[in-house]
């Protein structure tokens, strides 16, 4: 933000600290206690639980799924943005008073992990107007069964930006780890990546945060775990399928 008003008259208070790791009672901490210090959840309120109940329900229509998952995504992005740095900034209000506030610092961009991550872009853009968005496609290599990078496209100056990495479901963490590796290959430091995710399995969270301890993870809800097919339980099914995101990047 530009044109900071003259702040010599009064010393503005220091900007508020970034959010601290959650140590409030957390209804789903039962699934993961304690949380790794780099993991942050949304406040586990009744209204958030009601949102998750709607999107978990297999009877929920696609329209409702879109509406309610967008609401969670907006909240997650808002929470993620709170980890970005701010600077003290004094402004003059229309009433002629001065207000000691804060200004946003640093450029950001979004990176969605295809396909499901793409569904989070609309929510991101509602909070961060016209933000640049890169994309990564990672799929399981049929020969090695390891995640393999198929495609990536990033803003040119991504190394100078904070990156909000978007993937709705964190199950084993394989593709998320691969995506972070790709970002780091493009020069983005680990601590400038914020991973934003709707539902995480404790297994995936553990693997991911051990590998990247200084990368912040914002997750809406931590579920029980994985079943033998590596689906999150109770989960919400296939996020991309339920939003019917269908993109054909490859023949």
């Amino acid at each position, binding site marked *: 933000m530009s044109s900071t008003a003259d702040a010599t008259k009064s010393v503005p208070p220091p900007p508020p600290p970034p959010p601290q790791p959650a140590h409030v009672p957390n209804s789903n901490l039962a699934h993961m206690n304690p949380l790794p210090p780099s993991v942050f959840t949304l406040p586990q309120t*009744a209204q958030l639980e009601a949102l998750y109940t709607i999107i978990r329900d297999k009877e929920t229509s696609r329209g409702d799924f879109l509406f309610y998952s967008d609401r969670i995504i907006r909240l997650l992005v808002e929470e993620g943005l709170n980890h970005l740095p701010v600077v003290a900034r004094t402004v003059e209000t229309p009433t002629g008073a001065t207000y000691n506030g804060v200004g946003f610092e640093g450029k950001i961009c979004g990176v969605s992990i295809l396909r499901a991550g793409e569904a989070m872009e609309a929510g991101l853009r509602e909070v961060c107007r016209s933000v640049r968005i890169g994309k990564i496609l990672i799929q399981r290599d049929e020969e090695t069964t390891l995640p393999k990078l198929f495609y990536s496209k990033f803003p040119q100056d991504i190394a100078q930006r904070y990156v909000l990495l978007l993937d709705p479901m964190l199950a084993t963490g394989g593709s998320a780890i691969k995506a972070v590796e790709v970002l780091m290959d493009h020069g983005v430091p680990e601590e400038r990546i914020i991973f934003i995710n709707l539902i995480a399995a404790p297994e995936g969270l553990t693997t991911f945060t051990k590998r990247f301890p200084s990368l912040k993870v914002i997750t809406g809800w931590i579920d029980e775990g994985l079943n033998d097919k590596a689906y999150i339980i109770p989960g919400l099914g296939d996020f991309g399928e339920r939003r019917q995101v269908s993109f054909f990047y490859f023949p």
Partner: protein
Amino acid sequence: MPDDFVKSPSYLSVSPEVIQSTPALQPKKNTVLVSHGRPPWYAEDGQRIADAFVIGVAGGSASGKTHVARQIVRRLGSIPTVIILSQDSFYKYHNEEELKLAHANMLDFDHPDAIDMPMFASCLSDLKACKQSNIPVYSFAEHQRLEETKYLYGATIIIAEGIMALVDPALRALYDLKVFVQCDSDLMLARRIKRDVKERGRDVGGILDQYLRYVKPSYDTFVRPSASHADIIVPGSNNDVAIDLICTHIRQQLQERSNKFRQKIAIPHKYLSSRSGASTPDPRPEDLELDITLLPQTRQVQGIYSILRDRTTSRQDFVFFTDRLSTLLVEHALQHLPYAPKTVITPIGMDAHGKKLDAHHICGVAILRSGGALERGFRRVINDVPVGSLLIQSDSTSGEALLLHSMLPTYVRQRHLAKDTYVFLLDAQIGTAAAAFMAIRVLLDHGVKEDHIIFVTFLVARTGGVSVLKGAFPSVKIVCGAIDNEMQEGWLEGYKGEGNTEGKGRKVWVMKPGMGQIGDRYYL
């Protein structure tokens, strides 16, 4: 009052109860007539200070009741809100048999039993108590009460008119003034023949037949004797002097009430301790304990407020960040709704134990203009939600809040729904709290429960009217994003619009540091 009340030829405005429901013949009946805004009708404790003033006007068919009612409305001049409630609306629902008789002109509409007196009395009693009423709609063409109802709310004066208006004791008990319009039978008959022939193409024989069979006996048996209950008997023609007398009486009555209650009327800013132009003293300790739900002051929220408070922020940015902030506020406000446990099955066949919203109905009401700035965020959070509006502006001379227009959602209009409805009141800020006070009173009048009202706003002035508001309505939830310390009396340079076509400046209370005129910055 609009002059078209009285410009219709006199023979058209003499006998409402048998006139066909052609709109041109019944202008503005059963409608809240507004001359200017409605000033506060409640005291600082939030309670209503007076009932509406109710006048009953009875008299024979074609005696000139409607004319008298309209003349009263016109002579009273600057009375804010008046309803002329017609007895015609309260004809009973007819069964098949009665319907056949009615179409053959064989049903006696001039008997007291033809009218649903208990319903008439209950509607009138609700209106008198400043509640809303959904009165029935009767179609003369179909000779039947229709499914639809007509919503009425907010009258200071109610004129109930009809041939039987003084017959029923329950009705009589509701009137503050009872008027009987006395007219010679031959004059009434002459007017009736003239009107029915001209307006309905009926033949004189048929009219006389109906007159002798129903109208005349009913008049002699029920209507004329009810004149003994009247406080004043008005001649059916050349009655200017009588109407003047009535109006003088009404004005005097209203003045007395007003004098009695003047000091008690809730004008929250008069409790503010600020002198003109000076800033308010430090907040008193009790103010700091106000039960207000404040949005967590995260970096993003503070950053958004810094942008919104900055006078150099472009309108484009202002709108974007206002929408973002209102979304967060409404999300945060949802904690005041009730939730119940619910178990669902996920697509992979697992049970998931969660919660569901446990509220019957939810709607929003924006206090215009600046409350409209929260509407976008509200709709982003609550799907498919009805949003109504209240246009409340402050009077430029007295500073009193004036209710200029209300457009409430069905959930609020219908009393039986209102009691289970959660209402989000949206307004940009609570400064003097005058508008908030009035809006909450409107909802309570409609039967919304106090603890079902959630007031969502960007800014609250700690030293403003919010403590008076909380004192009057302790159960109303207030959710805001920031609390400012100061209220300052200032002069607002004129903007055109806002009921101020000349763009005159006015004295206002502004919050400091504040966000400026949020409505202007969002809309203009």
